[in-house]
């Protein structure tokens, strides 16, 4: 369980997150929705351990995040950031292999690492790019390669029982329609295999389709949390985004569908 308890973050005097409590269990997909500047990325940063909360606690398996060594933590949670700044001419497969860093002792690359990396490229439907120079890829291709790197980081040996956690900051960014769905399907598959997934999304309907639970943030506070059916109501969306919508039913998936009116 990855758990935030009464977490607050402020930069200077301005509060960015106030008194947020939230947990991610193995096997579930949690989507975070909210308008720009609601504190979504900050929430992800404190959950990942990159940012220490001003107040409150983050714990992984009931042990405070600050008590984990960076490497042990890296074996248990992986993070997809919004944008990648890699500007050196690595091959795509080499980029994904960087995800295997925490699994490697001083410098040693095992054949297993490259096999895992290749499998993750395949899962993201970019294995045909494995020999390409990363910097020459399109934005969407880069995003899928980064996702493959994140998946490769979390892939553990079969006998390991420990659950991993995937933290995804707008994973569907710059992806075309079909890859938006396939990246979230991949996240769901990871959840079925035992990972806990938290994804910041902008598309309310993608969240409705793939999330087990939805969290809505507004001005640093959680204003709604629960199943898509409970959370995606006209009132909540109106309050969070200041937008009039009506809620329909998805024709085949049995999930709510938000329509702007």
């Amino acid at each position: 369980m990855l758990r935030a308890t009464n977490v607050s973050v402020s930069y200077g005097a301005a509060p960015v997150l106030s008194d947020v409590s939230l947990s991610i269990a193995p096997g579930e997909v949690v989507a975070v929705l909210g308008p720009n500047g609601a504190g979504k990325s900050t929430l992800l940063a404190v959950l990942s351990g990159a940012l220490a909360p001003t107040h409150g606690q983050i714990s992984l398996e009931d042990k405070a995040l600050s008590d984990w060594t960076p490497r042990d933590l890296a074996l248990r949670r992986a993070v997809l950031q919004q944008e990648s700044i890699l500007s050196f001419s690595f091959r795509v497969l080499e980029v994904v292999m960087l995800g295997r860093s925490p699994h490697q002792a001083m410098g040693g690359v095992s054949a297993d690492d490259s096999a895992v990396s290749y499998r993750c490229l395949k899962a993201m439907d970019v294995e045909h790019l494995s020999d390409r120079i990363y910097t020459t890829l399109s934005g969407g291709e880069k995003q899928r390669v980064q996702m493959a790197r994140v998946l490769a980081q979390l892939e553990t040996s079969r006998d390991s029982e420990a659950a991993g956690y995937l933290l995804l900051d707008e994973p569907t960014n710059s992806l075309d329609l079909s890859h938006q769905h396939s990246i979230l399907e991949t996240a769901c598959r990871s959840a079925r295999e035992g990972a806990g997934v938290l994804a910041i999304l902008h598309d309310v309907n993608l969240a409705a389709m793939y999330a087990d639970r939805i969290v809505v943030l507004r001005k640093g506070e959680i204003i709604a949390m629960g199943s898509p059916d409970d959370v995606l109501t006209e009132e909540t969306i109106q309050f969070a985004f200041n937008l009039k919508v009506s809620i329909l039913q998805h024709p085949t998936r049995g999930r709510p569908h938000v329509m702007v009116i």
Partner: protein
Amino acid sequence: MSVVTNTNVPGAVASRHMRRRIMGFCLLAGLALAFLFSVGFGAVTISPGQILALLAKPLGLDLPWSYGQREETILYAIRLPRACLGMMTGAALAVAGAALQGLFRNPLADPALIGVSTGAALAASVVIVFSAGWAATMIAPLLPYLLPIAAFGGGLLTTLIVYMIANRDGQTDVATMLLAGVALNAIAAAGIGLLVFISDDQQLRDLNFWLLGSLGGVTWARLLPAAPFICIAIIALPLMARHLNAMLLGEREALHLGFHVERTKRVIIIMAALAVGASVALTGVIGFIGLMVPHLVRLVMGPDHRALMPASVILGATLLLVADLAARTIALPAELPIGILTSCVGGPFFLWLLMARREKGGW
């Protein structure tokens, strides 16, 4: 287009590994060749056989090439310390350049360009100008160590300043980095100018000779105090290769991948300052080695620091030996300051890099 049917590693990455091994061998062979040329060539020619025989002698080996006392003296008193200095300086500058480029995530971070070398030079100039007055005092025996330590301090300070100015939230702004370098270079140059202004004739000559960058006139007594600094950095920086690879993704990503980011940055900044400071203390400012060498290696071997760092050490040592050989033979009997030579080649190279970058959009 090939269809991959199994999960084995496909072509280019595997062949990159193979290429690395071959290149490693070629680089070592190149270094050996440059060493033989550099040590053998000069007013008195020493043949490769004689060099080997002379080098084997202290080991108690007797090789079948004959040599005279003159060759022995020239080799051990003049050529060998000079070659060692060249190899250490070249290796130090190249590996420090590669490390700083990884830290800044940008291949334009050359120690001389961003002000690190000049900062080290300013601190060293202070020692050179004022140490004459200290020669009679108690610290006289420490003077040989004072120069590299002061240069290290100056280099460390400038690296920290550039890093703090150019780095925001784990991202480096390249323009800011280069402009901060320009400003620091100007400030340090002003300081050095001031020192030149207040120096007497002898100090002025020492200072000038040294500022232009030269391997000439080195003795074991000057070389040995700085050698440990350089050697520590040359060994320590390649050990940070995996950290640097992760840092290329961004500081936050490196943290997510399980690296101690703050510790990594500290080690790299200190070790790079150590390498640059110690080499500046010995040779003055030699520009562009730290820029050209890692870039050439990346062109052939790719940006993976596990290959880049050791290869930069070897190629840096080789290139500086070659540059020194050129500097002392181009204008015989005079000797060109090597700093001028590397800048003549490195300046245009830098411009070419800038223009190529505009077209390709990546390094």
